Every structure is written in structure tokens, then in C-alpha cells.
């Protein structure tokens, strides 16, 4: 993806050579590459693989399909739409290479709560990427809710967007990256 900002140990850097491609829809034939798949496709692939693994001994199992699914999955990330339920990933959180959350509009705030649930409740420690209508003035909120990668909308300047990451120095309440409300942090 173009226009990607990533946090490494809390420090923001531009990632101009990001290898990932987000697929809004999955075509029948996938070329080689690193794809971020819609949740339902990713789940189908993931459960397909476990079934295949169980049926590995069955003679009619086409060996090829099994290994194809397996290699695809190794190079796959998953993205969640605002209406998706992160709990669907609860038993499979070791598998995705990254999780992305889509913001169809920057005014749709569901992704913030999904990020909270993935990080704070389900314990996702891998990359959490904001995709879609991702803009400078929301980056700080996204960061506080646990996102560590930001695919800034492609018609915007990513250098410019970097300025939005810092946000305000004071957070009264709590967030993913600061789970203690201010009243527990006061000295």
C-alpha cells in the first residue's frame, strides 16, 4: 500500500515499500503476493486449511489445493469492515500476518471500538492497520486506540499526515495505549 506510516517502538516512520495489497473482493485466481483479505474470505481460507489438515490422509484430498491454501494464508492479512465482529478471530489470532480495520468514511467511528476490542480484550499484538478514509486529523485518535500502522488516503500527502500523529499531550480518560485514566496517573 502506498502512503503508509508505521510505528516502530512508538516512533513513526514512512514505509514506502509496503508489500501489502488490500483486496476489497477476492478474485477467483490470485497472483502471487501479500494480500489483505476480507474477513469472510480469510475465515473461509483459514477454516478450509484446518479441514484440509484434518483430512490430509483422505485419498481424494487434492494435495495441491491444500498447499495453495496454506501458502496463501501464510502471506495473508485480514481486514475488518466496521460491522464485522472481531470475536470471529478469537481462536485464530496466531494466524494473520496483520489485521486491518477499514474506515469507509473517517466519520464512521466503529473502527475505534473494534481496535479497542482487538487490542485490549482479544490480545492482538501484531500489526493493526487503519485503512480507507484515513486522514491526518484522526491519526492521533487512531494511535491511542491501538493502531500502529496508518494507510493514509492516497490523494493526501503522507509527510503532511505525519504531523497529525502527536495529537494532544493530555488524555483524561483511558485508551488502548494508556489503559489507566488520568486520575490514576496523577502524581
Amino acid at each position, binding site marked *: 500500500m502506498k502512503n503508509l506510516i508505521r510505528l516502530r517502538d512508538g516512533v513513526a516512520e514512512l514505509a514506502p515499500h509496503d508489500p501489502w495489497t488490500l483486496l476489497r473482493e477476492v478474485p477467483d485466481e490470485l497472483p502471487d503476493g501479500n494480500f489483505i483479505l476480507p474477513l469472510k474470505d480469510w475465515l473461509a481460507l483459514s477454516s478450509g486449511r484446518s479441514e484440509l489438515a484434518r483430512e490430509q490422509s483422505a485419498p481424494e484430498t487434492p494435495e495441491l489445493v491444500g498447499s495453495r491454501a496454506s501458502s496463501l494464508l501464510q502471506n495473508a492479512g485480514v481486514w475488518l469492515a466496521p460491522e464485522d465482529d472481531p470475536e470471529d478471530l478469537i481462536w485464530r489470532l496466531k494466524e494473520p500476518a496483520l489485521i486491518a480495520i477499514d474506515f469507509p468514511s473517517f466519520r464512521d*467511528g*466503529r473502527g*475505534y*471500538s473494534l481496535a479497542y476490542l482487538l487490542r485490549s480484550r482479544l490480545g492482538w499484538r501484531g500489526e493493526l492497520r487503519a485503512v480507507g478514509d484515513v486522514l491526518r*486529523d484522526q491519526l492521533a*485518535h487512531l494511535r491511542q486506540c491501538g493502531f500502529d500502522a496508518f494507510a493514509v488516503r492516497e490523494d493526501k500527502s503522507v509527510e503532511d499526515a505525519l504531523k497529525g500523529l502527536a495529537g*494532544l499531550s493530555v*488524555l483524561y*480518560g*483511558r485508551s488502548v495505549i494508556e489503559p489507566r485514566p488520568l486520575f490514576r496517573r496523577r502524581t
Partner: protein
Amino acid sequence: MYRYDDYDRALVRERVAQFRDQVQRRLSDELSEEEFLPLRLQNGLYLQKHAYMLRVAIPYGTLSSGQMRILAWIAREHDRGYGHFTTRQNIQFNWVELARVPDILERLADVEMHAIQTSGNCVRNITTEAFAGVAADEFLDPRPLAEILRQWSTVNPEFLFLPRKFKIALCAAEEDRAAVMMHDIGLYLRRAEDGELRLKVLVGGGLGRTPMLGQVIRDDLPWWHLLSYVEAILRVYNRHGRRDNKYKARIKILVKALGIEAFSREVEEEWQHLRDGEAQLTLDEYQRVAAAFDPPVYAPSDDLAFGTALAADAAFARWVSRNVRPHRVPGYASVVLSTKPGAEAPPGDATAEQMERVADWAERFGFGEIRVAHEQNLVLPDVRKADLHALWREACAAGLGTPNQGLLTDIIACPGGDFCALANAKSIPIAQGIQQRFEDLDYLHDLGDLSLNISGCMNACGHHHIGNIGILGVDKNGSEWYQITLGGAQGTKSALGKVIGPSFSAAEVPDVIEALVQTYVEQRGAGERFVETVERIGLEPFKARVYRQAEVPA
């Protein structure tokens, strides 16, 4: 009063700098209007009919004399000499220039004020009653918890892009003067039998296009769970509230669609993960904030002069009977300064001079504190009874001494079609027409408690549904009409008014109100208030009178 500490100051200053940069980027077209819109709304800035409108937050309606003087300064320097106090206890200025807004916000920050989240799809100003801390029937001062909620909801990153606006109100007195039941979350604070403070939590109230009263989701929530419980409600709402239709996006629609039981199960399930976590409030924090609201040192007061003045001056006595309220400290009273003098000024409006006078009185006759009531009046919470007569004379001279608190002319009204871009119809001329018709004070006082609320459109900023008489501006084929409701009420006996029938033209409204009032006068029992008569006899006698009258050609 609550005073900012270093954190509060830093947040407000940084926010001003951030918004200054955003305004700059908008002016240079780096930000599109669509991208700028939610940013400016969350800083209190609307684009209205004539100009930008800035809504400044007055947390739970409490402000100091110094803050009031800054509001007067804004009115004079950046507006046309007045401001409009709102039903959310805030103030709005109707004629500001976009490029100068950051400077206004900077000036507000100097006196520990801001305009953060006075608009937008986020948690709005936390409200409580205007008599918090001084009301004789109060169990506890609600302001510390309101302040804690204010801080917690300010720039809370997860909840800045909710499906729709979100309003929270808190009441801790016998009588509910904060219209708690019409809030997205309503909180009644009580001291339980075991001595603990507990919260009755209501959810899903709201006016607008589909008016509903809140339903009880929790009866006995210990106070230290306040933040975690609100967080659970907000998370369920943020994820599942409708976003496809602005008019069905409030939490009340979600609560109604799921039913209160199913909604409550969702919230409880979410809350189980949070209840014993870091969001749990601590006694230390409560006490830290509560200390800011320690009562002033009241001096013993001699009531003799007050008694003499009451006996000697009938006009003063009349004002006292309506606009002076009991105080929990003997020798003191709370005073309601009416912003509804009649046709000469729109409800809720105050001029810069009036604001400055109020600030002076707050210092001379009180402890420098002022409140804004959700009925859009100003309140001086701590006045020695011995000073009431002097205050009253000055209030009359400044146009703030009208003795009509809670009477028919104490009209709640939104700015309406004269200013608001959303309005279907004007509100202010309707209010003025009614106020002109009911100028006779003897008659008004004889009618007694009667609330009349006017909204210029379905968004119901004028709270028409909970007025004993409600007036709603509607658009019919491009012309302005007014629909009348009867029987609405706020408080612990909240009720939504019922529509009496087809709507009226602006010119007809005063006659209609007069017909309604005459029906009440003929039908009332001894000591029966207007709303009680409506409840007892129903709408029919009122309808019959109004529509029979309408059929007779003038």
C-alpha cells in the same frame, strides 16, 4: 468552583493551537469543507444562515464572574453585542468570523473555558441543574461527578465519531430540574439505605423527531462504576447504533429496536469486562474534584430588612414569589434572573452590558458564581436575603427583573428560522407574539406554573415535547406553520406532550394559546396547575375550544 490544573490548562491550550492550524488549512483549502466539518463542530462551530455560530461550553451551567465578563467581551467584540444562552446551559454567538475563532478560543482558554464538543457526534456538555450545591432538596452536590464525567468524555479517542450526538445529565435532588429523562444517558444520584451513593441509570431518552423518555437500565449502580458503565453503554452504541439514517441514529432508536432487556444484556456483558478495571473511580479522585466545589463561607444574615421590604413592596414580593428559591443555608436564597422580559428580547438572549451587570452582582451579592438554567435563565446561587431588594431593583433596571420564572412567558425557545440553518420555521416572533398577548402580570401570576416551549424544527432544541404547551414549527409547502402539543412535562413526572390537531399560522398562535389558557381557567380545580388539569380532563375540552374558535371567521 472547579479550577483548572496543569493538565486541564495544557489540554485546552493545545486544542486551541490544533484548531488554529485546522482553520488555517481550511482557509488555504488544504482541508475540504467535508473534512473540516466534524473538526469545527467538535470545536463548537456551526455554519448558520448568516454566519458562523460559536457555541461555548459552560460545564454543567456553572461559570464565574470573570468568565461571564469574557463572554460579554466576545459578545461585544465578535458578535453584535449579545449572546444566546441555550437549553444545554451553554452560550452561543451568532455572528463570528471563522478566521477569528482561534483568537476567541485563546481568550476563553485564559479564563479556563473552551468550546470542545459543544457540537458533533460525540459526548456533549454534561448538564445538571442550575441550583446544584445550593438547593434545599439536594441529597448531594452533583457537580463533582459531572466534572469527572466532563473530563472523562473530553477528547476520549474511541468515542469522537459516534453515530450521533450524545447527551448526559445528572440530578441529585428530590425534584428533577435537569430534564434527566430526555437524555441519552440520565443519571439520578441517591444515597442508598446502606449509606452508599448509588446511581439510577436511564438510557435512550431524547427529543428530536422520535421523542422518548429514558428507560431504567440500572437501579443501583455504585458511584465508583460510573465511568466504566458509561463506557460500556457508549461502546455498545458506537458499534451497533444506526449510521444509515441521521434521524434514526440516536441511542434511543437502538434501545427501542433491541428492547431495553436485550440492550441491557449487551451492556452488562460489555461491562463485565470493565467493571473492576482501571476505569473504576477512586475515592481519592472523587475527593480531589469535590474539594473544588466546597461551599463558600456563608455569613449569618439578618432577615428583618427582607421581611420589611416584602411587606412594603408588592412588586418585589411578586418577584420573590416566582424568582427566588429556597437555599439550603438559612438567610440565603438563589435568584433566577429572567432573560425573558417579553417582546423586547428573544428568550435566552443577554446583551454584553447585561452579562457584565450579572458578573458585578455575582461579586457584590454572592461569591462570584453564576449559573445557567436549562430554561435559559441566569441564576445567582448565593444571595443574602437582606440583599434581595437591592438586587431586584438593579435587575429591573437592567431588564433582568421580570417576575415570570416558571410562568407562561418564561418561554424556552431555540433561535429558530431567524438564525438556524436547520429550522423549518421561526421561533422568536412566535415567542414574542405570545409574550405580548400575556403582558398582564396579575393574569400571568394567576395562571401559575405553566411551561411553554418552542422549537423551530423537529430537532427540538426548544424542548417543545416537554412543555406543558409545546409549539413546533413545521414547513408546509414552503410556508411556516405551528403544531401545538399539550401535557408535556419535565422532571420526575416527565411526559411527552400530545398533538392537539392541525397546525396554525403564526398569526393564529396567540389566539390559540389564549383559548387553551381560558379552557384551563374555566376547568381548573382549586390549586390545580395547568398540566394537572390537562391530565385530569384530557385534550378534548381544549381541542373543542381551539378548533371551534378557529372555524368562526374573525
